[in-house]
Each structure stands twice: as structure tokens, then as C-alpha cells.
């Protein structure tokens, strides 16, 4: 919510917050966050943020959720941001509190998620002396933040917060860190809130170059085998409707990357699935055989391109992206369209005509029929079966978060999304432990939607402490554990690439997840076969409040198709199904 909308919807509170009182830095921080429209902050207190937490005490306007680990707090803020499109906010103390955020900051940076991360620091006078719980967090996070601030004067604080929200949420989005020394949070000054933003050196290119868009439109008219590669940028720009209109007009088959899932409806005939290492047969073949490849808010990640030298060998490449540095970074680009994805597509939609793609579409439709995603079903409980069941019983309408590994790929393959901001996964950094806390954040941001958190038995143990906040706050996330008692993706690589030399992947001895859930006061259920799976999953859906469901699945299942490193994407292992 922008300050303007906040003013309109909460006029009384707005007027109260805007009073020019002489208040502490901590109170300035809270007021500034409220004025930015922040309705939930995830955090964990400690010595250097005591003034800030003191200002929260008895403040009825400020909503803070106490997690059980700073990493849980930042992943929750991330899930909140991805699912709502708003800026996620988290707070941690200096030193270890701040360094515990580092993985979460890197996760958000790699996936362009807007976060404002607030850390306390030691007193200004103690900075640089190796004081208790001191860490140079602005220095540590410089390579993984879009920008960062160390606030040295309380008079700069409200302006800094306003700038941080602006930078986090415009252009290519990303995390911005504000480090506040303890004395700055205590010092008092008169509150002012300047709505104007003027950051010299920060002017994201939003409006596209008309000539380049015209070139794109012309290239489409001439193309016989065009393909769209839609990435997370489509979702983040809120350009899903424009993309659908663009595809309807141009008749171009469309592939969604891991982060682009939901940016284009999977129910559409022209959707080909996900590309890359575990992409669909048709998506990968389409890229390799196309004559025009239009990347839209996608950054040609190495898990998509695989061997870059052999990627899309016959294609002219067009690239629509808000970040000019992405254009030409990985693949040579003939038609660069730098600008906000929504604006570029709006402009293109005014002129776009259909490509000469009838035969190409027919060829790809046949391929989709011949090589669908599939698995060999059995009487044992297969992980893919569980994902398909979750999809069917939720009509594809849930918000699904995942962790990282095999279950993530199966979820991307077998849960079919039709809406943006419903699929939340750590794509770029591949952060285990992300999925469950991200679901908590997504549920806070979307109290009326069903949120399903799908995890492996490895990643579930990386942030399971947050079961406590689900129980205490009755956050009704349905927590799925795809439990194969092994680090499945590592096992798969060791089987296929390392000649069955299984090294340190055995997770037997993990806790009984049902008992673990119950220990925290969360309902726990278990299924070991299909019948039980259907039964307990329905029970979970019918239960108000959080439920953990432990699906004990087939151990030796692999994700297919699979492209091994060093191969081109049409060189796929298809499995024995």
C-alpha cells in the first residue's frame, strides 16, 4: 500500500502519525513503516533493537510477529512480499541477529523480491571496536542487497525509510537494508515525513524504447516458430493480463520459468510448461527449434539454458526486462526492450499481429500429447501422486510454497497454476528451509486463501521451529512433508552422475514429524499409502488451523525429464516411465 492509499483508507491514523511531535528514532521508525502501509512485520528482538521493541510495546497500530529464528522472520517477510506484491519487512538485532538474515537477504536478492530489512547495530561510538554483538552488516550484505543504509543521524531516519521502500519496490525489485545504531534509535527529533523522493543516480528505465518495440512486433509477424520464455518479471510487474493478451494476439506458444509459473495460465492451450534442467520435453524442444525467442522478465539462468553455447541455436532473441544489465548478459540479444514488462507489453499489444505459427503450434501440440509429464504409478505412495492429489483437491487455487529439491520440481511439474503470486519458491539461490516460513508470511498476507507448504524431509528440519508461531497465532498453513528419508535431489545426482556412490544423504533418524508437530501444538497426520493419503489430506483440509501431514513416499523416485550439466536442453533423460 502506498502512503497515498494509506492516507485515503486510514485518514484518522494518518493524521495522528503525521503530527510533528518530538519523538525517538524508534518511534520515528514505527511511524514511517506505518506510513509506508506496512501491516505486518516479522522479527526477533535483542540488545541493539531494545528501544525499537520498547516503542512497539502497547502500540496498537503496529503489528509484529515474533518468529523463533531470524531466518524464519526474513523468509516469512519474503513469502509475504511474493504473495502480496507489497514490500516485506523484518527486524533483527545486531551481530548474530543480523548475520542470521544473510541467507534470507541473498534469497530475496536472487529472486528480485522487495524487502526492507531493519537491523540494529551497537552504539555509533562503539562501531569499529569489536563491541559485543557487533557485525558490519552493511559490509557483509553489500553484494546481496539492492542498496543499504547505515543511519548515523536520527534526523535522516524517516527519509531513509521512505527511500528504502522506494528503491525496494521500483525498477528491478530487491532487498534494501537499514542498519540503525542503538543510540540513533534512542535519540529524539521532530518527526517530519517528506513524501517527495529524489535519489540522484537512481532512475530505473520504465518506459520502453518505441523503436525496439516496433522491431519486436515486426519480428513476430515474420516468425514461423516463435516461443515466449516468461519469467518472474511478468509476475512481479503484474503483467499477467498483458501477457495473456499478447499471446492471444500473436499466437506464440509460451513457456514459464520456475519463477514465471502462474504468470501465464497453465490451462491455456499455448502453455508448454517449464524449461530447463527438469523442464518439459516440449518446452525444451520448442526452445531448441524456435526461430524467435522472446524472453520476458526472465534472466536466462543456467538451470534454464544449461549449455549456453548450444542454447536456442536457430533463434533470434528478443529480451524484455526492466534491468538493462540482464539484456545481453548471458545470450546475445538482437532485440533489446528495456522497460517495465507491463508497459512494454501494453505498447506491443497496440500493434502486435499474429505470427505465422499455425504449423509450429500443431507440431508442439502433437509433442505435448506424445511426451506429457508422467511417472510410473504403483501401489506404493509416489511423491508425484501426492502433488497431483493436492492439485486436484484444491482446484489449483491454493497458494503453494515449496522448499528446494525433488519435491520442488515435482510441485512445479504437477501442480498447475492459473494465477500469479500463488507459487512461491526459492529459484535463484535454492534455499532449503525457505518454504515453510515463507508459507507463514504468505498466509499473513492472504488470510482468506488456502496456503499449502510443500517440503522435503530435509528442508523441513531447517526451519521447523516456526511450527510454534503457527500454533500460537493459529496460522492455518497446511504443512506437507514429502518424506522419502533421504536428501532426494542429491541422491538422484549421486545415482546418475556419481555412479551410485551415495555419500551422506541418509536422513533416517529424523524426528517423527507427526510428534514434532504435536510437540508444538500443531495437529499431525501421517499417510503411507494412497488410501491413507486421500483420507488424511481431506482431514487436513477440513481442519481449521495448521496441520502437518507426513507423506511417507517411495524413496528411489527421480525427477524426469533431466538434463545433466554440460548438455544442451534437448538432451534429456526421460526416465523409465
Amino acid at each position, binding site marked *: 500500500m502506498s502512503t497515498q492509499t494509506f492516507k485515503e483508507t486510514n485518514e484518522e491514523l494518518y493524521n495522528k502519525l503525521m503530527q510533528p511531535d518530538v519523538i525517538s528514532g524508534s518511534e520515528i521508525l514505527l511511524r514511517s513503516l506505518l506510513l509506508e502501509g506496512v501491516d505486518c512485520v516479522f522479527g526477533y528482538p535483542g540488545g541493539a533493537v531494545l528501544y525499537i521493541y520498547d516503542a512497539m510495546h502497547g502500540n496498537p497500530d503496529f503489528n509484529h510477529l515474533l518468529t523463533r529464528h531470524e531466518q524464519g522472520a526474513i523468509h516469512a517477510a519474503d513469502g509475504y512480499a511474493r504473495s502480496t506484491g507489497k514490500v516485506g519487512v523484518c527486524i533483527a538485532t545486531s551481530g548474530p541477529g543480523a548475520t542470521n538474515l544473510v541467507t534470507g537477504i541473498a534469497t530475496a536478492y536472487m529472486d528480485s523480491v522487495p524487502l526492507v530489512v531493519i537491523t540494529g547495530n551497537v552504539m555509533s561510538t562503539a562501531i569499529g571496536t569489536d563491541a559485543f554483538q557487533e557485525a558490519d552488516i552493511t559490509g557483509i550484505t553489500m*553484494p546481496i542487497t539492492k*542498496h543499504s543504509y547505515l543511519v548515523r543521524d536520527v534526523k535522516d531516519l524517516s527519509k531513509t525509510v521512505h527511500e528504502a521502500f522506494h528503491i525496494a519496490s521500483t525498477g528491478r525489485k530487491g532487498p534494501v537494508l537499514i542498519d540503525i545504531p542503538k543510540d540513533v534509535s534512542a535519540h529524539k527529533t521532530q518527526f517530519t515525513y517528506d513524501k517527495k523522493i529524489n*535519489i540522484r*543516480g*537512481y532512475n530505473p528505465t520504465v518506459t520502453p524504447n518505441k523503436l525496439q518495440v516496433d522491431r519486436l512486433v515486426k519480428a513476430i509477424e515474420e516468425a514461423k516458430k516463435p516461443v515466449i520464455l516468461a519469467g518472474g518479471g511478468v509476475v512481479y510487474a503484474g503483467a499477467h493480463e498483458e501477457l495473456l493478451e499478447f499471446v492471444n494476439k500473436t499466437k506464440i506458444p509460451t513457456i514459464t520459468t520456475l519463477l514465471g509459473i502462474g504468470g501465464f495460465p497453465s490451462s491455456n492451450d499455448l502453455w508448454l510448461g517449464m524449461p530447463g534442467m527438469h523442464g518439459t520435453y516440449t518446452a525444451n524442444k520448442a526452445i531448441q527449434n524456435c526461430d524467435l525467442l522472446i524472453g520476458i522478465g526472465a534472466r536466462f539462468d543456467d538451470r534454464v539454458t544449461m549449455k549456453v553455447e548450444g542454447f536456442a541455436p536457430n533463434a533470434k532473441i528478443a529480451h524484455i526486462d526492466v534491468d538493462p544489465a540482464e539484456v545481453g548478459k548471458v545470450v546475445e540479444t538482437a532485440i533489446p526492450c528495456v522497460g517495465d514488462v507491463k508497459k512494454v507489453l501494453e505498447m506491443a499489444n497496440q500493434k502486435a499481429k499474429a505470427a505465422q505459427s499455425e504449423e509450429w503450434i500443431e507440431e508442439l501440440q502433437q509433442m505435448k500429447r506424445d511426451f506429457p509429464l508422467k511417472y510410473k504409478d504403483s501401489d506404493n505412495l509416489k511423491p508425484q501422486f501426492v502433488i497431483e492429489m493436492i492439485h486436484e483437491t484444491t482446484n489449483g487455487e491454493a497458494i503453494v510454497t515449496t522448499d528446494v529439491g525433488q519435491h520442488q520440481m515435482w510441485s512445479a511439474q504437477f501442480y498447475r497454476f492459473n494465477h500469479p503470486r500463488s507459487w512461491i519458491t526459492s529459484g535463484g539461490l535454492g534455499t532449503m528451509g525457505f518454504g515453510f516460513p515463507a508459507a507463514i508470511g504468505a498466509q499473513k498476507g492472504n488470510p482468506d486463501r488456502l496456503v499449502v507448504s510443500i517440503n522435503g524431509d530435509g528442508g523441513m528440519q531447517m526451519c521447523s521451529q516456526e511450527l510454534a508461531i503457527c500454533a500460537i497465532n493459529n496460522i492455518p498453513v497446511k504443512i506437507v512433508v514429502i518424506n522419502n528419508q533421504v536428501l532426494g535431489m542429491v541422491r538422484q545426482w549421486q545415482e546418475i552422475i556419481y555412479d551410485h556412490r551415495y555419500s551422506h544423504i541418509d536422513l533416517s533418524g529424523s524426528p517423527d514429524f507427526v510428534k514434532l508437530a504435536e510437540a508444538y501444538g500443531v495437529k499431525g497426520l501421517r499417510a503411507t499409502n494412497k488410501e491413507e493419503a486421500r483420507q488424511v489430506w481431506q482431514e487436513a483440509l477440513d481442519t481449521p488451523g495448521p496441520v502437518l501431514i507426513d507423506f511417507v513416499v517411495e524413496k528411489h523416485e527421480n525427477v524426469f525429464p533431466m538434463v545433466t550439466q554440460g548438455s544442451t536442453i534437448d538432451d534429456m533423460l526421460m526416465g523409465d516411465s
Partner: protein
Amino acid sequence: MDAKKHTISILVNNQPGVLQRVASLFGRRGFNIESITVGKSEEEGLSRMIIVTTGDNSKLEQISKQLYKVVDVIKVIDISANPMVERELALIKVNAEPSIRPEIIGVVETFRATIVDIGPKSIMVQVVGDSEKVKAMVELLKPYGVIQLTRTGVAAMIRGV
């Protein structure tokens, strides 16, 4: 495309940490820094960095685009794409017993360099010029025994306009 030497001028906000932001960007993206100089610019609150780097055109384009993503970076120019003036200063302390001094002074004067200090057994030479000239001066003084060498890195500017 061939890797070429490029001299880049970067106008930045004079904020704490800005040197670290720029230098660490070069480091983590695998861009090479041959020399770097930083100082105040003509405008209050802004500094100018001159970085000499090597790379082909696509690498240079990436460097420029990545630099622009740093919020404190205001302007990036490849000075070496234009006619430019490039200057570097070096101080060179050379072994110099009184008997050999006239010979060294002869070498130094030919280079329009200057003697800025004389010690009992050494002299200090100051040379100003482009990097090639500085390098040549150092090479010529090496046979006498260079005790210490310090160079400023390159300051550069586009000619005319």
C-alpha cells in the same frame, strides 16, 4: 572480440562505503582493476573514480550496466573511447652515491621528470605522464637500484568540448 584496456570515469555520491560498493562489484563480477583513483569532483558531495580495466566490448558494456545498478553511481563514461588526456604520478627512490648522481640527473631531465629530494645515499624522482611514460622511467632507473616505488594510478579526462 579482443580484450582492450579501458579507462572508465565513474561519478559517485561521496558516501561512506561507496568505494567498497564499486570495488566489490568489480571483484565479484570478475572484472579486473588495473588501477583506481578516487578524489573529489567539481561538484560538492560528488567524487570521481577513474578505473583502468581490461575487457572486450561486451564485458565493458556489462561493467557499465552493473555500475549503474549501484544506487550511489551517477554517471559512467568510457573515457578511452574518446581522445583523452591521461596522467599518472610516480615517486621513485633510487640508490645514488654522490659520484653517480650526475648520470641519474641526466636521465631524469631527459624525461622531464624532477628530483624532489636528495638523501645521503639516494635521490627521489617524481615523474608525471601517461602510464607508458611512468613505466619507461622506472625501467631506466632500475639499473641504479630502485629502493621504493609508489604510483598514484591514473587520472584522466576527455579532450576538448
